[in-house]
């Protein structure tokens, strides 16, 4: 088993530029069934064997996707997500980086009470190894298995997955929730899905400095999560007041430090990896 994506996922790709096409091809290689592309102006053509539509509404009617992967550039990405929400696409993974924060506030409003779950933006997407890849992560480092991975960071997720696979530990589903201040799916949302997934037996949770999402998740874990978790917080050595790449990774007003987050995780029984090189071994010790 797995969460969010599997063999039955019908994928639409929004934005078929260079990156969109490259990754669509990679997704197909690692098991995604792409049923439609959306690229205004190219409706009626084909790309990589799937039909291309001018709008999500047309794609939804003709190809019935239940997931979408968004590569639309930052200025139009929020609009693309709104379009997918309007067409009631169940899952949207938005890869795009650099979306204005207030655009995402509008998207978050539209998501409330809708039929859509958004993962991201500014994230690597979701993969259930051996079943479906809805994202930009390198497919070959994954192995099917029963460890769930959830992270705010992209390449650090790859690092964790690489360490797990090297140790022979496969993954049920790996999700990058994104490094922006406003995101569609939180740690808690993903943990709840992992808790209810019989195919997931343990979880790696990777946070970073800034905000309070890790503390909130750790608090939630206390009463709601029964499976072992290995955790890590990136940015223990980052200086306050500086935005470390991700718009959301900033220690502001003395809040959002790694030590606070690590303490919250430990207080909830999460095994915190001492260094990023120990992500795999910390999880392995819990199995």
């Amino acid at each position, binding site marked *: 088993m797995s969460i969010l994506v599997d063999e039955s996922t019908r994928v639409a790709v929004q934005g078929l530029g260079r990156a969109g096409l490259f990754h669509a091809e990679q997704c197909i290689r690692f098991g995604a069934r792409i049923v439609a592309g959306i690229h205004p102006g190219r409706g009626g053509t084909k790309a990589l064997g799937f039909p291309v539509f001018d709008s999500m509404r047309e794609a939804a009617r003709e190809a019935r996707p239940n997931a979408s992967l968004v590569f639309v550039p930052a200025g139009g990405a929020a609009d693309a997500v709104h379009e997918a929400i309007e067409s009631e696409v169940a899952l949207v993974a938005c890869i795009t980086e650099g979306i204005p924060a207030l655009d995402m506030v509008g998207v978050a409003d539209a998501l409330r009470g809708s039929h859509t779950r958004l993962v991201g933006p500014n994230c690597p997407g979701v993969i259930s190894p051996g079943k479906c890849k809805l994202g930009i992560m390198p497919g070959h480092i994954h192995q099917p298995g029963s460890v769930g991975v959830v992270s705010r960071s992209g390449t650090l997720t790859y690092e964790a997955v690489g360490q797990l696979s090297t140790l022979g530990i496969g993954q049920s589903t790996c999700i990058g929730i994104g490094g922006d201040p406003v995101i569609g799916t939180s740690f808690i949302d993903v943990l709840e899905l992992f808790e209810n997934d019989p195919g997931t037996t343990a979880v790696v949770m990777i946070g970073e400095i800034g905000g309070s999402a890790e503390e909130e998740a750790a608090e939630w874990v206390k009463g709601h999560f029964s499976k072992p978790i290995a955790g890590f917080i990136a940015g223990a050595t980052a200086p306050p007041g500086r935005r470390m*790449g991700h718009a959301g990774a900033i220690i502001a007003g003395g809040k959002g430090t790694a030590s606070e987050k690590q303490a919250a995780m430990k207080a909830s029984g999460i095994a915190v990896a001492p*260094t990023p090189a120990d992500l795999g071994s910390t999880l392995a010790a819990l199995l």
Partner: protein
Amino acid sequence: MKVHEYQAKEVLRAYGVPTPRGIVAGTATEARAAAEQLGGKVVVKAQIHAGGRGKGGGVKLASQADEVYVRARSILGMNLVTHQTGPEGREVKRVLIEEQVPIAREIYLGITLDRSLGKPVFMASAEGGMEIEDVASENPDAILKEVISRGRLHTFQARRLALGMGIRGDILAPTVRAIGSLARAYDESDATLVEINPFVLTHDGRAVALDAKMDIDDNALFRHPDLAALRDSAEEEPLETDAINHGLNYIKLDGNVGCMVNGAGLAMATMDIIQYAGGMPANFLDVGGGADKGQIKNGFRIILSDPNVKAILVNIFGGILKVDVLAAGIVAATQELNIAVPLVLRLEGTNVEQGRAILAESGLDFIVAGDMKEAAEQAVARAA
């Protein structure tokens, strides 16, 4: 993107937020002329991108034009050190000359994004002039909050904030109007922060933004050319601006191990593991997902322009960024830039075998590490 106080006030005035009358000056002579034009008593305020200017000696009162000249001359060109500038301080290039207003009361007004709610929140506190972080930790109940939904702060919400601070009578209406205008300015400017500390009520019945701090969302500058023009590069670290111009994200730090990494999370984790290995990172550098040869070269150039760098650790987990492309970039950069410090490479991901072959065939003296921990230990040892 940060803007200066005088720029923030110009933006806010356009939305109807009252501010003191003021004129910005770049020389003491201009400052005197500004004071003469304003008439009466004025304040001379240093314009730098940092708070705490008053405590650092960057804000002075003056009662006549000659005094303004003297004050401005001492502030302009000074190296102003505040709790936000770091010990090196910041050179003052401009002063804002503003009329003094008869202060009856000081309050705090601020708008920022509440990440848990996914919405902007308007904060107000009767304790104006204090750092909001201090109020939040000592007396959190003293901070009143109203959530801004769909870009709008309703008038009743603005009124509730004002009433909550005990503002009553004739001054209520102008305060509520100013609060509403601030919310509109935040929304329409794509700000990430608007902070008025203090906002003052005056003895002559006015509600005025005495100070103003405004940060604009860098990601939204593409649709605000007028705001983008307010950027003051002189206030920014030149290497960081250089990096942005090449699609890189660089932050200078104090150590001697340079780092080049793809992805912000992995870049932070690399800084962390350098410290666990007993060293100190010289920088944060995220080359991003799709770095090309030119970006790799510029990344090395920027890292090496910091003379403290004694070794460089390259930590790449290639997904989109293919390791062979990266390796070719490293070889080219090493030759073109004559890199003399030890290079420790930890490369993983797509096309890693081809990448390692390129490094081996180059004949150059790289230290290739198998994992992150070994890479960090090697780099720290070489830098020591």
